[in-house]
């Protein structure tokens, strides 16, 4: 009887370990966005502390970027971005929640597998459903997820004053890279 309990406990432990192993995460993901217009000042920012979690068995993916962590080359641009456009005190974070469809961990290799990420992007307090291509690969024990897409500030109720609108592209190019490990 005692042995049976011991075996049961052992199996239970194994089970929890294998479930836990399915979760991949990072706290230092990268997001870059660019809305530059040729011959004007470069409008570009980078964030190196984006959190993300991926569940290996279901493909569920969530990412969170604290808006104040976006760094611009020009300090005044960073200030305006935070205070006037994205209102980062009122809306301190941007989130992604969704699923990387048809994700099968055992099929991943060092080469990119093109999959689709489907989910909701929350920015500036506005939810928007998105479906974008995701390049997924596996290097060692880490899963690398790279997303590339375009956003329109108007879709997220972000108003850009007409005086600067000629210097900021209508569509913002966004690139996100996550190296997720267990």
């Amino acid at each position: 009887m005692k042995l049976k309990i011991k075996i049961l406990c052992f199996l239970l432990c194994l089970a929890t370990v294998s479930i836990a192993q399915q979760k991949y995460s990072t706290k230092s993901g990268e997001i870059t966005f660019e809305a530059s217009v040729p011959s004007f000042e470069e409008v570009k920012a980078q964030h190196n502390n984006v959190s993300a979690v991926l569940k290996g068995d279901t493909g569920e993916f969530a990412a969170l970027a604290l808006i104040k962590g976006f760094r611009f080359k020009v300090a005044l641009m960073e200030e305006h971005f935070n205070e006037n456009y994205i209102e980062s005190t009122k809306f301190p974070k941007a989130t992604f929640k969704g699923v990387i469809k048809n994700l099968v961990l055992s099929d991943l290799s060092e080469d990119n597998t093109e999959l689709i990420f489907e989910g909701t992007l929350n920015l500036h307090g506005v939810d928007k459903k998105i479906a974008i291509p995701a390049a997924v690969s596996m290097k060692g024990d880490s899963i690398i997820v790279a997303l590339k897409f375009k956003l329109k500030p108007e879709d997220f109720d972000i108003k850009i004053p007409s005086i600067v609108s000629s210097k900021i592209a209508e569509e913002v190019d966004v690139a996100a890279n996550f190296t997720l490990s267990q």
Partner: protein
Amino acid sequence: MNNRRKIIVVLFLLVVGGYFAYNYMYKDHRDISTEEPSLEIAGTYLLERFKTGNGEDLLNRTITVTGKVTQVEGEAVTIDFSVYCSMASETAVTATNKEVRIKGRCIGYDDLFELVKLDQCTIVK
């Protein structure tokens, strides 16, 4: 003679105006490492403040966090499982289990990992 004077005055104003405009547009980034922190707080208390919704006034402010290093990941250290500090340089990273005082800019609360995040951090002696 009068005309020449006018031109000189206009040129002078343009140069001075241009100088101030340029300085305003291309002012330097904040240097968190030399800023005076507006608060010194234990890591666990800082997390508690954000969890109870009392952290918003700390956003974008330079604060000092104290506690024990519980995790080191790349260029970042975590204090008391509560505060994630992204260091300004790799050299500043220390070993786990060490009591530290870290100064950085508070960028917000990460509810995925339940951590408060700081960037541009430096170790304070």
